[in-house]
């Protein structure tokens, strides 16, 4: 079965592009560092965000109920979806009942997770992603490769070629300003003619019954305000208790995500516009199962800033698609195996456990510890290679017997230097594909110590 290593290989083999990808994302990480270091209270903010989220998760049902009653009082229609399919049915139901055939969307990883676009398109609804990056990958019929920067894997020449093909821009044109202008014209048309607008939700405030959407392009605001119907889709973990809590999260989100002090737009939607309708769809899709698990509960604190992707030395060098899941990077590697452990068994191992993700995370999700915990679960459930487990238990047997360990070490140090290179570095030695083995010393530390003590 192909896993992360196999999918990462072609990405790594294109070294110039892999380096370019690594540098692009490291640049974002550095922007984040500059913004974060400008706030003396950065670590306190992270602690506060962690505490607020953890508290919220500890009484999520209460806050969800409070949110619903306040939202309903605001004139918002609230829907509950158990899984992706229910979510898609609800959205389609709203559109179909009102005869809407053109939907504009702003960024929403949840609808990616639920595969809403193909569901609606199969039922005759034209769906247009209006976030520039999202639109680019949509035109390429690809999923996003990053949760905040969906087209980060593409160079501007790639985008120039795509727009030439699909939007009729000049051949060979790759000037970002020119391409953005072309996209803007194209998207404006879609926005003006849409029957409904769908947005994601960054935060849903229980105390006010309103939702908050943070974006940079203004497309969410146009999508939610031009058509008469606004549908906002949210995972049930998006709740924060009070409006005041936003002060903590809004300061952390954009700084962590893109290294901006704040997103260009932080839009509060507290009810339908005059004469219009507003719907909020609250989706579980496996989240309550994660909530029930002590070890993994904290992954629900995630605010999808993408910082753990930008900092991850593996993600930067293997690209979003190597993860084979809607959400790539460390947080994706924690979330994906909850959904399908067998299909995503390689993801918790696609990490050197360096812990950079846990230190960068604005809500302090202990990502690398969760990856480690998942490894153990996958081994227990028999979802990983049995050869590896066998090798590990053989090693353990040896290490439990000092004489065996001593003899084994002695033998290795004698035999390895005698082996011809083609045997030692055959294809069965993945270490040696690009690396030398360490030189074998004739004596172990124990041997040296004995001499030292009789000196």
């Amino acid at each position: 079965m192909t896993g992360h290593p196999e999918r990462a290989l072609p990405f790594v083999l294109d070294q110039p592009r892999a380096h370019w990808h690594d540098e692009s994302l490291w640049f974002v990480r550095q922007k984040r560092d500059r913004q974060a270091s400008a706030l003396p209270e950065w670590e306190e903010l992270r602690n506060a965000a962690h505490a607020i989220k953890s508290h919220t998760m500890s009484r999520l049902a209460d806050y969800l109920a409070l949110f619903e009653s306040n939202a309903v009082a605001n004139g918002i229609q609230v829907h509950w979806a158990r899984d992706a399919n229910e979510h898609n049915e609800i959205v389609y139901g709203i559109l179909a009942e009102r005869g809407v055939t053109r939907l504009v969307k702003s960024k929403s990883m949840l609808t990616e997770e639920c595969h809403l676009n193909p569901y609606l398109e199969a039922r005759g609804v034209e769906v247009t992603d209006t976030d520039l990056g999202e639109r680019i990958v949509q035109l390429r019929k690809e999923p996003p490769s990053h949760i905040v920067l969906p087209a980060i894997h593409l160079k501007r020449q790639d985008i120039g070629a795509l727009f030439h093909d699909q939007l009729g821009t000049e051949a060979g044109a790759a000037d970002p300003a020119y391409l953005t202008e072309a996209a803007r014209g194209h998207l404006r048309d879609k926005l003006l003619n849409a029957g409904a607008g769908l947005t994601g939700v960054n935060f849903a405030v229980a105390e006010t019954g309103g939702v908050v959407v943070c974006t940079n392009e203004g497309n969410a605001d146009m999508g939610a305000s031009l058509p008469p119907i606004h549908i906002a889709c949210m995972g049930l973990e998006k709740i924060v208790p009070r409006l005041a809590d936003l002060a903590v999260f809004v300061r952390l989100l954009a700084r962590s995500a893109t290294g901006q002090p704040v997103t260009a737009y932080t839009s509060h939607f507290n009810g339908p516009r005059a004469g219009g309708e507003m719907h909020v769809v609250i989706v579980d899709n496996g989240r309550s199962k994660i909530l029930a698990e002590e070890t993994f509960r904290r992954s629900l604190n995630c605010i999808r800033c993408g910082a753990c992707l930008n900092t991850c030395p593996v993600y930067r060098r293997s690209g979003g698609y190597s993860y084979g899941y809607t959400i790539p990077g460390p947080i994706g590697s924690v979330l994906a195996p909850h959904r399908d452990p067998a299909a995503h068994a390689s993801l918790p191992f696609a990490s050197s456990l360096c812990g950079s993700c846990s230190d960068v995370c604005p809500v302090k999700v202990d990502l690398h510890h969760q990856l480690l915990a998942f490894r153990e679960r996958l081994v227990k459930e028999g979802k990983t290679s049995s050869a590896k487990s066998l090798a590990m238990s053989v090693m353990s047997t040896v290490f439990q017997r000092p004489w065996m360990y001593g003899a084994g070490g002695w033998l290795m140090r004698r035999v390895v230097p005698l082996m011809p290179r083609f045997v030692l570095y055959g294809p069965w030695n993945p270490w040696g594909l690009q690396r030398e083995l360490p030189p074998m010393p004739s004596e172990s530390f124990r041997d040296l110590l004995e001499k030292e003590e009789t000196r």
Partner: protein
Amino acid sequence: MTQIGLFIPCYVDQLYPRVGLATWRILRGLGLDVEYPKSQTCCGQPMANSGCGDAARPLAERFLDVFGKYKHVVTPSGSCASMVRNHYDQWLAGKPGFDHLKSNTFELCEYLVDIVGVTRADGDFPGRVGIHMSCHGLRELRMARSSERMDAPFDKVRGLLAQLRGIELVTLSRPDECCGFGGTFAVAEQAVSCMMGRDRIADHERAGAQVIAGFDMSCLMHLEGLIRREGKPLKVAHVAEMLEGARLS
């Protein structure tokens, strides 16, 4: 009670005996009461990091048996020290002596700085040196402030090495990015692992380093493997070897 139980990780014992000996001499040189219990083998980290908890547990239990009797346990490996301190709970919590072991196991530099109170390193190490901050020492033991965090900076390793005469510590463009070793990761994900390693080496080269210094031989073994394959002039050195000849006080 013997003061220090010296823990020499299995691969250091077998492959880098000089690092073990340097550690022994440093501790002895400080006049400390050190013992190397011969029944020790491996802390179980390779198994634990592969998710094979059942294979790791007996080694954790053995470790407690072997090292439980010492006031302090010292090891020239940040990663193995972190294994004991941060990952043994799942198997040993509540066992007699575990709380003591857990809070008294140290990586060498940490031990020198925090417990012995070494403030001066009087010795020579002429040359340009880049420090490789291995991740577990950095982000699990907090031997320095990681670049992601925004609290007050500190660095226990640099603090010691910077005092050596003739040493020039170079500035890396990515001060603490992972080298890509990661235990079985180095093999299972060899393509990504080696690219990470080569990128680290390139950063040290650009900064003008002649030596990559570190406190975990596992990372250095990976980096050295790449360096030797490519025939580069760069060397790697463990901090214990660098501090061995110095007078510490």
